């Protein structure tokens, strides 16, 4: 079962990385970043589950990580709103505005 969750984590990681690189919309990039961190956390916790006995230290690390992720997202969103007010676009690519 744990092997299955490791594979799941890698699949989600790859999908999120793809989204992070390909999507131009910054809001979408932020969501991809959040999913990316979730996948990393999934990997860590699955490793903790495989340990004998169950290792709670990765759990604590992941809790810290979740809070840091939400801080990052909040700052990113605040910057995004400022960027939109200034440039009228949600992408960083100024030459290719639709």
């Amino acid at each position, binding site marked *: *079962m*744990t*092997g*299955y*969750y*490791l*594979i*799941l984590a*890698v*699949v989600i990681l*790859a*999908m*999120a*990385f*793809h*989204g992070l*690189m*390909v*999507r*131009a*919309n910054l*809001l*979408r990039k*932020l*969501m*991809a970043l*959040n*999913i990316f961190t*979730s996948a990393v956390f*999934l990997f860590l*916790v699955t*490793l*903790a*589950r*495989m*340990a*004998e*006995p169950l*290792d*709670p230290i990765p*759990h*604590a*690390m992941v*809790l*810290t990580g*979740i*809070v*840091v*992720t*939400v*801080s990052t*997202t*909040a*700052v990113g969103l*605040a910057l995004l*709103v*400022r960027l939109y007010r200034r440039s009228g676009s*949600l992408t960083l690519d100024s030459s*290719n505005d*639709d």
Partner: protein
Amino acid sequence: MAVFDLILGLLLVILVRKCLSITDMFGAVISFMAFGLLMAVAWVRLEAPDIALAEAAIGSGLTGALLFSTLGRLPHSETRQPLVPRGSGSGPGYWLVTGFWWAAAMVLIATFVFSFQELQTPGLGGPLQERLAESGVLNPVTAVLLNFRSLDTLMEIAVLLAAVVVAWSMGYVDWPARQTIPSPLLPGVVRLLTPVFLLVAFSLLWRGSHAPGGAFPGGAVLAASGILLLLSGMTVQISPRGMSWLRWVLSAGLLVFVLAGVSLMAAGFGFLVYPEQWAGNLILLIEASAGVSIGAMLLALYVGGEPDMAPSQPNNPVSRPQ
């Protein structure tokens, strides 16, 4: 139960795909929140109830609220942008790079499939169990967060505070405007539920010492209660005096943490090295102040900037495009 995990994983993958490729941004945010809730189920399956609580409260709930409030600040046309701007997303360069990282991911998966039995697992569970009695709490995750690795938690609260500082330094926002509430239902229900929210938040705080819970889920529930109050049309006029109080509340968690560490150092123990007989009480004190601060900081991040104190037209708030 393997079928359950299989379905769960499939749903997670489908939701990620939906979140990252549906054109409608509103739908993407909904998919993202559903992904977070299903991740909480996955954490329970992996025997990590602490993370399940934090993921449901912070990872899905509060991040979703943040995303929605950002969507509300953008004009409606922006939320239905075409996904890929013209000219990108095709061509040999794109496929070369995409193919490269997908191939790398597949190789990684194959490596796991063939060798995950020999994968090094973290093995500190045993030593942690042995020293749990010294920590002053019974929940191993809380023991790691607030005793054995308390410096990490200190830094984490500092990161959260830094995020609030960055958000505030980007200028004032008008206090979320009183929206036209279609019915008295929402304010009524919120009035009914706010005491329940407070009860749950402090019960989570208290439970943290012996069961899953603690300052972070507790603070998130506090912030959720504040967000609901704002959504149901509550407006407060913040005086300059209230503002300075707000600043103290925001930084209380970090201040108490640092003060505890420094006074322990002055007493000759070392920074955040708790003497065994006080450890439980110290952890409770730090956790309580951190919980209240975390709630206030998450709420401040939801508001998105420094609330404008200027008493400009208090009865005629600026309407913002929804």
